């Protein structure tokens, strides 16, 4: 599955990465997995963030699998 990061999270983790897993997971399970990677990950996920699945704003209980595109970013500040 492709994970995209934007803004503050892009600067911390890079633009994107591919991760693969055998069964469906919820967005919050993926966030937990990323948070467990180390202190720099935990710090970023302790600040406010939002997620989009397949380019649509999503909740943390949405299930995702390998063909999906998950984006993680800070609350938006356009306009």
């Amino acid at each position, binding site marked *: 599955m492709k994970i995209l990061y934007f803004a503050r999270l892009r600067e911390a983790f890079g633009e994107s990465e591919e991760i693969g897993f055998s069964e469906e997971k919820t967005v919050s399970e993926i966030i937990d997995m990323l948070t467990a990677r180390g202190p720099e990950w935990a710090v970023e996920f302790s600040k406010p963030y939002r997620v989009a699945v397949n380019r649509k704003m999503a909740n943390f209980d949405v299930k995702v699998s390998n063909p999906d595109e998950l984006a993680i970013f800070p609350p938006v500040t*356009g*306009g």
Partner: protein
Amino acid sequence: MRVIVQEKDFDLREETEKIRQNHPEIGALVSFVGLVRDHGQGGKVLEMRLEHYPGMTEKALEALLSEANRRWEIVDVTVIHRVGRLPASAQIVLVLVASQHRKDAFRAAEFVMDRLKTEVPFWKKEKTAEGWHWVEAKASDEIAASEWIG
């Protein structure tokens, strides 16, 4: 209905003329232009950088305009949002709503701006004397957007 995300500047008059010439039936045209304020969260703003999510940003704007179209009588609408580096006082966003009557145009323009601020993926980074920092989302924007629910 036009949704454009671009680096270059836009011309309000030019965009107004396009709508006016295409739609002799309109009686009202409401425009909103958002600018780079010279004073931000970290003091005097020297410059701003805007990031977006190509593919999703356009889609989210289109969804927003479709919702506005369902809720009010809109004849045409143009949204242009700039990205990249912008100096102080630069134009950031244009919302132009054309309608037969003013109330629909006013309401729809305000709705589009309020919701754009909380659900369309753009992120601002400001440069002040202390350096670059990401602009924090404001609770007042969340409240303004939530007032359109229902």
